């Protein structure tokens, strides 16, 4: 076999197929990270001593393990120990989601702590319960404060999907590698992949800034969000 050239429409199709996997994987992972990270942030801010400690240990342990190692543990080690494991795609979502949850909890903790304490006192004095205060006073503001940093985290998750190749996930970068391997032309195809990543990131940044403006409150940090 001689190195061949690939017609551009075939190459684009392969890259877009990879981009689809990249998008699906990154969106599911960031949502899983949100679902774990936000409660962890609340635990760390408002929990009792034990809950705070648990949240702190969770954050530090997860942030201390490289993503590749998390993948190896979830996909290769756990099945060896317990005899049952997740299929590659869900292992990739869980690994990336757990890793992101530790960073997202930091982001939300910052957002929660940025809510003025006087407002909490005022809310309590109106007779609101803890959960009501969190739901109606803290979160609406904290989430707005957190949006730019959260968008940043999404971009990191998006780019880190390529590490899932370690457990057999074929996404955008891998499709580019296929093309490079059969054509021997690295610049062309890695550049094309880079452009696709950029388009995804830019469109989502635009979306985030739109959401920030639409739901922003005048005079509150989230009103002029730029992500």
């Amino acid at each position, binding site marked *: *076999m*001689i*190195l061949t050239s*690939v*017609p551009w429409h*075939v*190459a684009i199709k*392969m890259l877009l197929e990879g981009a689809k996997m990249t998008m699906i994987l990154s969106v*599911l992972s960031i*949502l*899983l990270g*949100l*679902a*774990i990270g*936000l409660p962890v942030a609340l635990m760390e801010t408002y929990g009792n001593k034990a809950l705070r400690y648990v949240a702190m240990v969770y954050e530090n342990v997860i942030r201390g393990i490289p993503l590749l190692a998390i993948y*190896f543990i979830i*996909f*290769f*080690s756990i*099945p*060896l120990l317990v005899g*049952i*494991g*997740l*299929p*590659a795609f*869900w292992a990739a*979502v*869980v690994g990336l989601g757990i890793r992101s949850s530790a960073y997202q909890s930091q982001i939300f903790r910052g957002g929660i702590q940025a809510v003025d304490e006087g407002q909490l006192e005022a809310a309590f004095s109106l007779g609101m319960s803890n959960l009501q205060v969190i*739901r109606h006073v803290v*979160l609406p503001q904290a989430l707005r404060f957190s949006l730019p940093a959260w968008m940043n985290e999404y971009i990191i998750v998006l780019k880190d999907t390529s590490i899932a*190749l*370690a*457990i*057999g996930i*074929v996404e955008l970068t*891998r499709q580019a*590698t*296929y*093309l*490079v*391997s*059969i054509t*021997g032309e*690295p*610049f062309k195809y890695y550049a094309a992949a880079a452009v696709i990543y950029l388009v995804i990131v830019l469109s989502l940044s635009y979306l985030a800034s739109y959401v920030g403006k639409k739901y922003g409150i005048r005079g509150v940090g989230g009103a002029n969000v730029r992500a």
Partner: protein
Amino acid sequence: MRWKLSVGVLAFILVASVIASGCITGSSSSTKVLVVGTSADFAPFEYKNPKTGNITGFDISLIKLIAKKIGYKKVKIVDMSFDSLIPALQSGKVQVVIAGMTITAKREKVVDFSIPYWTADQDVLVRKNSNIKINSIKDLYGKKIGVETGTTGAIYVKKHVGKNATIKEYSTYVAAIEALKNGQVDVVVLDSPVAKMFASKYPSLEVVYTIHTNEHYGIAVRKGDTKLLNQINSALKSIMNSPEWNNLVKEYFGS
């Protein structure tokens, strides 16, 4: 409301993953499917055919022939990074690895290898206009040598040329070839068939010397999976002694 939605999404993910994992683990052992691990960025041994979208190559055709001979109805190819292949074998994610993998003492400690099916000779590739002549390993002394990290070529050059030359390592052989074309290195040492492929793609490059490394590719199975290993070995022997072998070589290497 939005809050409840995200909890719902999480619950969905968890339930779906438990169901999905149950299905997959339940079915793999009962049907006759051979699950093969490879790393499809090593044309012509394993690569993705852009026309069909399938992973193909010399190794893939070979393992399909073997699987058929030993009674597997289907072959499932799983592509992953080269470094993950041995962990995947050990954890039972794949039954066989065929990926242009050189049989080394270190790897033999953790997996079992079939009889060798390919000799991993290394070619020295140069720019035609550089007038570099290589007649023995010693002629590489003083040169800037490009290799791909972790490959037989890299290990061989480090061992036999070592400090007598500047060795530049690249993460892929494609990057090493680019460095050669740009003049960042004088020569590139890489697997014979792959080097010849690049020499025919780029008229400015040529193969000037072949190093006989005496190293071989093997098919890997889990340590202690003797039954499968014996089946693979006898199938491999009969294929290598039949015209099928020459057809395979012809199809992927054109000689």
